[in-house]
């Protein structure tokens, strides 16, 4: 079963990286979302997976049973899911605004700001910053 989980994480990661390499902004963000989910699954599987015993200290005891489920990865995953979802939504909005402003979703054509200004080009490209 471990290999099955490992293959699932690998598939998520590979798909995510492939999508991320795209120049299309939306595809790139979907790739990032896939990657986030791959990482989340990785955390989830790195805890103990096989136990279904609830992690509750038995009556009268002071420590957990040895075969109790591990609750920590679920807490971590919950945090990571919330953050991942928020970041995906946020970058999606960024892409939407960038697409509206520049009329293209191709990340290479959105702005020539990070290209070195050549001699013949008018140096008026500087954005007003105050």
């Amino acid at each position, binding site marked *: 079963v471990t290999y099955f989980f490992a293959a699932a994480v690998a598939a998520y990661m590979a798909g995510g990286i492939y999508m991320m390499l795209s120049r299309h902004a939306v595809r*790139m963000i979907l790739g990032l979302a896939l990657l986030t989910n791959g990482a989340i699954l990785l955390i989830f599987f790195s*805890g103990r997976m096989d136990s279904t015993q609830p992690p509750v200290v038995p009556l009268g005891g002071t420590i957990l049973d040895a075969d109790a489920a591990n609750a920590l990865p679920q807490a971590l995953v919950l945090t990571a899911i919330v953050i991942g979802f928020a970041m995906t939504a946020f970058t999606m909005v960024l892409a939407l*605004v960038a697409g509206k402003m520049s009329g293209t979703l191709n990340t290479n054509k959105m702005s020539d700001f990070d290209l070195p200004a050549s001699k013949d080009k008018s*140096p008026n490209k500087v954005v007003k910053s105050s």
Partner: protein
Amino acid sequence: MSRDLAIVLPVLIPIATAAITACLWNSHVAQKRVGLVSLFALLCSSFYLLAIVADAGVVAKQFGAWKAPFGISFVADPLSAALVTISGILGFCVGVFALRDVSARHQRNGFHPLYHGLLAAVNGAFLTGDIFNLYVWFEVMLVTSIGLLVIGRTRDQVAGALKYAALNLFGTILFLSGVALLYGATGTLNMAHLAQILPNTQMSPGLMASAMLLLCGFAIKMGLFPVFFWLPASYPSAPIAVGALFAGLLTKVGVYAAFRVFTLLFTVEASGLRETLAVIAALTMLVGVFGAVIQWDMRRILTFHIISQIGYMLMGLAIATPLALAGGIFYVVHHIIVKANLFLLAGAIYHASGTHDLRKSGGLLRSHPWLAVLFLIPALSLAGLPPFSGFWAKFLVIDATMRDGAHWLAAVALLAGILTLFSMTKIWNEAFWKTPALVRKQPRRVPMAFVAPIAALGAITMAIGLFAEPFVTYSRAAAAVLVDTTAYVAAVFPAPAISSLGGM
């Protein structure tokens, strides 16, 4: 004030201010006042923390009184305390600069809550003792910094922010995967606990992959050689006050995380990364400095120099002797002050000459002579000329490299230093010395809110340069705590607990 509170305050103050300023959304004057008071309180509390750490060594705080490996701990060792203090100084100075630099439109778009949120995230990342918590602070830092980056809502800012977001998000995902593998191999996330377990663990493929993933994640955050492209795409488009804060703090959080993880959890020798790190450091120094040569916009030149300077810090980590680490720490402290100051100066020069393009400006030596003096201090310090702070920083790092026998790396560092001097000379010639293309009848005044923080940061640079001894001693003490992890572990696990928890 109790010692526990002192560790939490550098995060608590800005995060509370972010909430308060967000509540005062419609009143910019009130936001400004609350923000300034809070920045001053942050400055004081960070100095208080520094005093405690200098006095008592490493101090730790367990949240919710959960005993060490189970709860989240905050740890302040000399390195964290120094960086929190520097970010407090910088937050205050840039905050004063922002009084005039940040327009009403930027404030309407939420400048103040984002600014304080970013400071909280940076301090949280410096102070946390839990590696998953570090991930959370990274994400808080990322989302607030994107908010600040697109605050003007221009096309260049949004397009740059998209690249910044995508690459940095990728970096945090790599970091998160590394944390997952680390947790799978050791079953703990507390860094002090990991520091006890990992030296006794065989270096398995999973752990090795974890170390590599963490390094790649931090490399993107730092802007190291192959993965720095987000940096020149985004920083120069931001408003000057924002750019200065970014230039000073953001990449340095990545550097701090790498210093922490590759001394406390993994070591550079044991993970076999020394040669890789040394080569990456050399390439980062060279590529950054060559990238700056062809630029004509002062903000772009400075952005590429951030990349180049990160190489020097990484050099300290790659050599990893106590001397080299001390040099690296000294370098980070000096660099945060100098680089932010140069960004603020870029803003002042823009204000004085009316353009960011160096080819079009000029003659500032005649019209604003004191601005020229203020520029020379950080510029020569960045290039590493005595008696400024940069000389000592470069001297410590290169000296440690020579002692370790990596002469080629020292040679590359010196070459990058000369090229840095070339870039600074270019700014000097173009902006200050040459006759301007367009002579102004009335000189444009630079407001006091611009000059005061620039002068304050310049004074700190001079102080570090002229009275280097206490700073060097402090860096050596901080490096000693990094190399010998017992003090860090003992602060998180008070004495009797260590033996019983060690085998968990």
